[in-house]
């Protein structure tokens, strides 16, 4: 063995990898070669150094510190993902759910009907008396019309939702309620989707049915006296209508011809005619000059800054004959329900509104800035981005986390609807106040729970009286003078 060969084997030698004969040959060479002996010393010294350094470093214990950090960061991350997931679920549910779309559609329909009444009864300069129109419409025990709606833009910034088109046939009966057949075309995640829905609003049963024929699914919802009372009042109480009419701002836009029928048009940009829910409202009502019945209603409005809607109510058939069977929902046996056990609709009452205010305050740490439905939803959804969530928000998340995982998909939807109910009640109550022109005012931007004597919300209850909800959520009826005093204090 020469020196070069020997050097090749030194590392393997100190590492103990040489077999017997190799070891022997190497030992033989080493005995006689001082250079290789020195070389071996060097290799051994380096090996010792490596082993020693390795041992020192291995004794430096990172384990506890790393594990602590892992666990700490994991719990932070977990909370964050839970938060994101849940709220995201909530947002997705609110914005994408067929129920909500139908509910929005239904709200629009109801608002349009309210708008229809809002018009009627006003004296026009051109011969058609809207009062006469009202009278005739009220006489109709049942009527039908068709509706076309089209949306453009997104419900929420950054939310992918394409245009939605909806055509429906609506049958309304004073005796039985409303029946609506809806065909929806929408784009969800870039793919076209068709939906067929049958919706019944049955005041006698205090129930709403929604049947999705293509999905073979259905929903039942119950509403309470407060909603029913308002529904009745909106369509039947002439005194309320009169008040609406007096307050409505409209212009007579003159004559035109629709399908060979001579009509007269009235235009309003009063947001109240769509329940105060929408922005940039323009509604045109065309009335048959001869029969004095509505022929067409055109609507343009914005749901919010990103989403525009236009719609048309047409093909009105007044005085149609209906029978009770038409208002009996038929749900085939193989259909399943999205919300098992039904769902209770939010209540449009003062108590519901107070509960909603309390709920929002606990959840976000302050009263909502605005209480129209859209804005409320956005404020609640915004909890997701909150850097310092309140105890209630954390608890809600915990509750959701605990319960949601166990629940089947349908139950989740219901749970979320239930959680959101107080918020919806508040929005609904506000909507009816706007619709009924009860001079609602809301000061959530500045008033806090500590402001026990400041007006948080108020609305008119009679000629000289207002109902006031104070910062501490106590409600009181006050005179107009007293209210003026209270609100003057607010301005300071």
């Amino acid at each position, binding site marked *: 063995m020469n020196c070069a060969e020997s050097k090749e084997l030194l590392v393997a030698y100190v590492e103990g990898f040489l077999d017997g004969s190799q070891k022997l040959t190497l030992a033989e060479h080493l005995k006689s070669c001082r250079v290789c002996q020195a070389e071996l010393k060097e*290799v051994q010294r380096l090996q010792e150094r490596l082993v020693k*350094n390795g*041992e020192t*470093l291995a004794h430096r214990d*990172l384990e506890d510190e790393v594990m602590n950090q*892992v666990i700490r960061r994991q719990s932070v*991350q977990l909370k964050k993902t839970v938060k994101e997931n849940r709220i995201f679920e909530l947002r997705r549910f609110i914005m994408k759910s067929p129920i909500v779309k139908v509910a929005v559609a239904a709200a629009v329909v109801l608002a349009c009907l309210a708008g229809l009444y809002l018009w009627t009864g006003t004296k026009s300069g051109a011969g058609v008396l809207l009062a006469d129109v009202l009278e005739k419409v009220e006489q109709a025990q049942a009527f039908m019309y068709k509706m076309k709606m089209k949306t453009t833009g997104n419900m929420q910034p950054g939310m992918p939702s394409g245009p939605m088109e909806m055509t429906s046939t609506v049958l309304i009966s004073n005796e039985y309620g409303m029946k609506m057949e809806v065909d929806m075309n929408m784009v969800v995640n870039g793919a076209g989707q068709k939906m067929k829905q049958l919706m019944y609003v049955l005041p006698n049963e205090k129930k709403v049915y929604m049947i999705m024929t293509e999905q073979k699914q259905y929903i039942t919802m119950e509403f309470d006296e407060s909603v029913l009372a308002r529904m009745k009042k909106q369509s039947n109480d002439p005194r309320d209508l009169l008040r609406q009419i007096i307050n409505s701002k409209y212009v007579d836009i003159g004559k035109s011809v629709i399908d060979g029928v001579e009509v007269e048009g009235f235009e309003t940009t009063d947001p109240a005619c769509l329940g105060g829910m929408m922005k940039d409202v323009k509604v045109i009502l065309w009335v048959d000059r001869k029969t004095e019945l509505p022929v067409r209603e055109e609507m343009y409005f914005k749901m919010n800054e990103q989403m525009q809607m236009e719609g048309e109510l047409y093909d009105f058939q007044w005085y149609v004959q209906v029978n009770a069977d038409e208002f009996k929902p038929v749900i085939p046996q193989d259909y399943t329900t999205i919300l098992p056990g039904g769902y209770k609709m939010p209540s449009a009452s003062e108590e519901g509104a107070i509960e909603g205010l309390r709920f929002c305050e606990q959840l976000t740490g302050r009263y909502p800035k605005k209480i129209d439905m859209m804005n409320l939803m956005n404020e609640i959804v915004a909890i997701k981005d909150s850097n310092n969530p309140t105890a209630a928000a954390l608890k809600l998340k915990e509750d959701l986390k605990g319960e949601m995982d166990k629940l089947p998909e349908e139950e989740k939807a219901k749970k979320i609807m239930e959680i959101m109910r107080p918020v919806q009640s508040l929005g609904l109550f506000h909507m009816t106040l706007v619709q009924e022109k009860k001079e609602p005012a809301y000061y959530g931007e500045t008033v806090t729970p500590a402001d026990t004597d400041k007006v948080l919300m108020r609305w008119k209850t009679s000629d000289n009286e207002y109902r006031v909800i104070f910062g501490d959520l106590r409600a009181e009826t006050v005179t107009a003078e007293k209210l003026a005093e209270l609100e003057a204090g607010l301005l300071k």
Partner: protein
Amino acid sequence: MQEMDQYYVERCLDGHPDDFRYLVRRYQGALLAHLAGKLGNKDSAEEAAQESLVRAYFNMGRLKKPESFFFWLLGIADHVAKEHQRNKRIRQQREAIRSFSQEAGEPELSQDYALESAIAKLPEDYRKIVLLRYYANHSCSQIAENLVMPLGTVTKTLSRAYAMLRESLQQQRAKAYEV
């Protein structure tokens, strides 16, 4: 050995965070040596090693080959080391501006910085083997298994790594005398 890493990686991914400690135990020495050579400061190396391990844990889902956990970990450590160096430079610049007359205290070097920096300078294939052998306490046959190479190649590579380390250490000594 290979399967063991994979096993713990999968355990972690299956929601058993506590099993990560076995991987920490197994590779902390190698990781420290790797980082100490790059950073030259005991405390920064320790800090960076912790950070690397924590990051590895939270990015485990992205590890495509669980059996090569260690090399993936070294990649993360390189990244962390770069960040540390950048932060250190910024800190030093700031410090220099604040008190340019004062000498900054010498950072505490690790026990054998010369050796660690020599390891850091080794080509990757050689470095891996040295780290596994002396800092993760793998036997040569374990390394061969881990790296999927014949045992002979491992010993040859190790032998060459020795030569390179000696050369590098000698150069460092020479430089020290020059100064």
